[in-house]
C-alpha cells in the first residue's frame, strides 16, 4: 500500500497550464489529414509541450463521437482549460483556431 505524499508547491513557482485537445477525424480523408497537419503546426508554434492532443478516428470509434455530441469531422474540441471550445473544418483558418484555444492575443 503506497502512501500519498503531499508536496507543498514552492511559493511563487510558475504553474504551467496544459491545454487538452481532442480532434475528431476520419483517418486518411483529405480534410482530416489537413486538420491534423494544421493543428500540429499550431501546437508546435504556440503550445510547445504544454498540450495534450488526442486524435479520435470516428470510423474506428463511432460511439465516442456520438457520446461526445460531435456533428461533423474534422472537429476540434478544447477540453481544458475552461471555457471549452469547438472548431470545425480543416483548421486552415489559424486565427479561428487560436481564438478557440484562447491564444488570440499571441497571433503575430
Amino acid at each position: 500500500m503506497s502512501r500519498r505524499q503531499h508536496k507543498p508547491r514552492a511559493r511563487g513557482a510558475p504553474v504551467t497550464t496544459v491545454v487538452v485537445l481532442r480532434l475528431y477525424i476520419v483517418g486518411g480523408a483529405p480534410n482530416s489529414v489537413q486538420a491534423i497537419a494544421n493543428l500540429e503546426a499550431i501546437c508546435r508554434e504556440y503550445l510547445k509541450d504544454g498540450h495534450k492532443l488526442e486524435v479520435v478516428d470516428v470510423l474506428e470509434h463511432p460511439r465516442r463521437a456520438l457520446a461526445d455530441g460531435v456533428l461533423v469531422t474534422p472537429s476540434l474540441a478544447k477540453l481544458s482549460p475552461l471555457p471549452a471550445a469547438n472548431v470545425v473544418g480543416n483548421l486552415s483558418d489559424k486565427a479561428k483556431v487560436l481564438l478557440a484555444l484562447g491564444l488570440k492575443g499571441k497571433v503575430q
Partner: protein
Amino acid sequence: MRLKNLPLRLAKGGPEQQAIEAGEIDAIIDHASSNVILLPAARRALQEAAHEASKANSLLAALPPAEHQRLLAGLEPVTLKFGEVLQEPGVPIRYVYFPVDCAISLVTTIEGPEVGLVGYEGAVGISLALGVDVSSVRALVQATGTAMRMTAAHFDKTFHQCPALQRELYRYADAKLAMARQIVACNCFHAVEARLARWLLMTSDRVRSEEFFLTQAFLAEMLGVRRATVNEAAGPLQRRKLITYTHGRIRIVDRKGLEATACGCYTRIALNAPLRRSSSASPGLASSP
C-alpha cells in the same frame, strides 16, 4: 456537393453548415441513425487509398482487375495495433484480414509458441475458404500496421464468385500448412538462438523493414521459452553485431550473418510460397497465374 439526401440536423448557417459548404468536412455524424456518413470527396479519397493499399497485399495484387474490383467493394482498411487479438480458437471468424504492412502471429494457445506468421504475403481467417467458420488458432497482432478487412459474410458470398481468389487462397492455405509443420518441427529440435534468428528474419520480411518493435515477453511467448532464455539467445546475436536491441526496438544490422545463424527452416518457410508451384521459378511474392 449533394446534401439533400443526408439526414442533417445541423443549424442553418451554423459553423458546421458553413464548413460543409466550404468543402472542409469529411463526414457527418448522424445521431438519429448512429451512423457516420462520409461526404463524397472523402469517400472517393478513401476508396482510392483502399485500392492502392490493397495492391500491397500479394494475394489481392495477384487477382485480375475485375476480381480485384469486385473484392474491393467489401474491403475496408483498418489499423491493427500491437497485441490486438483478431481471432480466438473455437470462436467464429468474424473477419478475413489481408495485411498490408502489419504482421500477425498465429499461436495455438495463449502460452503456446507460434505456429505461423502472416504478413503482406497472406491472409488471416482463410479457414473460411476451406469451409470452416471457426478459428483453430489465436491470431495476435505482432507489428502494428494496416490491413484490409472483409466480413466473413461478405467473404463467403464473394469467394465463390472469384476463381482467381480461390486459386490463390488454396495455394496459400497449403503454404501456411507447410509453414506450421516446419515451425512445429523447428520448435522441437532447433536451438533457441537459431530459432530466434529465424523468427526475426521472418518478421522483418513481413513488415518489410529491418527495424521493428518487440517486447521480450512477446518474444519469449512466440518462441515458447522463458524470458531469461530469450536474453541468453539475443546476447550473442548482439555481441556478433547481427542485431541491436534497445528498449524493445530490434534492428537487423547484418542480415547475411543472421541468415547464417538461423536454422534452415527460414529458407524453407514461405514467403516463398510460390516456390511450391512448378510453374513459378522465382522466389518472393505470390504472382499472377
